[in-house]
């Protein structure tokens, strides 16, 4: 369980959009009524999104919620069945090469491990873009400097994933898509990765990522859209999502067994209990739902409609 205070401490992004970023406030992505069906199953069932420039936006949800389908439609990799989509001012289904030169993609699937070295792969992808970053700087940023001359075939899974990120950012994208970027990372690697992404956002890159890790969304994103069953079930800053206006739960040990009471005024309730007990209350706990509890509740409520 992750307590709210920890979430707030871990959050590197201010909840509001940052000032001083040119174009901040404009929409990088605008989606209205997005729909996609696979055969008879609705994978995306009427999604609206507004993602501002310079923002880190997380699509959070369980497997099969429609995250990847949504992000692939935004990338222009997948056709939609309905709705309006505008990404950097263009419809991704019809956008051309100049538009592609402004976005970066880190897909869910790992890059094929072949006979090329890390440096060859990264500089190759850089060469397709109008204003690429220096490949060696990018390789350093993802922490692969000492593997720069190693062939991909010899890298570990986590290292290959970092090559994916390097390939995604070498073109100096205005907008970066990351589809479950840290799946399979160890905790240390995830922290390092979060720092890298936060650094990119500080340089003005708009970032859209999907994740099924609540802590990742909370630590990284300025705003989070919770997806379940192809619908947005909650949207807001991590703090908004974790806002506690729910009742607290007071539990204690009475002489005849354990008791649990839900109340909107836990302080008064505990004071009354203390007076009654005439001192220490045995086994007292006061809890509020954690962000994770809220999240599980949100996605649980629409699980019956979920598809894969």
């Amino acid at each position, binding site marked *: 369980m992750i307590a709210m205070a920890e979430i707030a401490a871990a959050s590197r992004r201010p909840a509001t959009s940052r000032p001083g970023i040119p174009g901040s406030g404009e929409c990088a992505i605008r989606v209205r009524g997005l729909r996609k069906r696979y055969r008879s199953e609705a994978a995306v069932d009427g999604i609206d999104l507004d993602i501002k420039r310079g923002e880190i936006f997380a699509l959070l949800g369980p497997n099969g919620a429609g995250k990847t389908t949504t992000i692939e439609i935004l990338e222009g*990799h997948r056709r939609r069945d309905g709705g309006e989509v505008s990404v950097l001012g263009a419809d991704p289904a019809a956008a051309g090469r100049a538009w592609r030169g402004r976005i970066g993609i880190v897909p869910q699937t790992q890059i094929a491990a072949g006979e090329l070295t890390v440096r060859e792969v990264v500089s190759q992808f850089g060469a397709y873009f109008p204003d690429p970053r220096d490949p060696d700087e990018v390789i350093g940023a993802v922490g692969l400097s000492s593997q720069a001359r190693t062939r991909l075939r010899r890298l570990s899974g986590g290292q290959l994933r970092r090559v994916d990120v390097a390939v995604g950012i070498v073109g100096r994208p205005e907008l970066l898509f990351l589809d479950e970027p840290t799946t399979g990372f160890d905790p240390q690697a995830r922290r390092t990765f979060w720092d890298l992404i936060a650094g990119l956002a500080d340089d003005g890159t708009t970032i859209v990522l999907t994740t099924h890790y609540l802590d990742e969304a909370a630590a990284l994103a300025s705003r989070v859209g919770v997806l379940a069953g192809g619908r947005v079930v909650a949207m807001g800053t991590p703090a908004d999502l974790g806002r506690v206006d729910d009742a607290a739960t007071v539990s204690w040990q009475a002489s005849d067994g354990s008791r649990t009471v839900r109340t909107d005024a836990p302080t008064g309730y505990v004071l009354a209990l203390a007076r009654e007990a005439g001192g220490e209350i045995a086994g007292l706990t006061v809890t509020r739902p954690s962000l994770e509890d809220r999240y599980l509740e949100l996605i649980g409520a629409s699980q019956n409609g979920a598809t894969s």
Partner: protein
Amino acid sequence: MTAATAAVGRRLPSLGRVSLVRGMIEIKQFARQRENVIFTFSLPIILLLLFGQIFHGEVGHTGVSFRQYFIAGIIASGLMSATFVGVGVSIAADRDDGTLRRLAGTPLQPAAYFAGKAILAFVTAVLEVAALLAVGVAFLGLHLPDSPGRWLTLAWVLALGSATCSMLGIAIGVLIRSTRSAFATMNLPYLVLSFISGVYFVFSRLPAGLQHVAAIFPLKWICQGLRSAFLPDRLLAVEPAHSWEHGKIALVLGIWFVASLVVCVRTFRWQRQGDR
């Protein structure tokens, strides 16, 4: 400076530059796969040495040994194997391992991707032909072209033949569903054409019907062009038109090149419809 402002005013890199980048990447990938290199280069050489031992006699009354006639054919066949089959299989592999999908997410033009394949095909074809020539001269009594004109013929037939077969390989390779079926799919037309185009048999001795069919496809014309580079004009007695028909060779290969290029450019998609 932000990403947004830095990108303004920067042009996308030119087709020529990106094609060269793709070509280098393709060559490196190919050269580092040892099995692939050995397979590609050794098969025609083994066939050359094997059939060189089996075939005897002279072609008609031309004084040209069938062995020499056959060497010109196996060089043409090796060229087609290195280009047509090699390109088709590698495109299927690129689709299978997600390379195409990843390239689709960048501003790379399909034309630069094709050009990279064609560059690799041309380089392997030149090396293949050089290896076959070396073996032919060393062990089977082949004579190298004896005049600048014949060297020039060798050069343009090689270049045009390789470009045409690469484009055809791309046009067919993009239709293949998986790497596993790629070898079979690419080898079927290659082997059939090898048998009817004057590689293993003297072309003019084939049944007329097969000759007409073969004359539609490029390999027959590449074989004929290479014979004109390597073999004496005495052989014209048994050539179907009693002429090397250089103009017609260039025309047929050129038509195939342009037609497959148009098909590639118009039908190529980084991703299949079903995957979208």
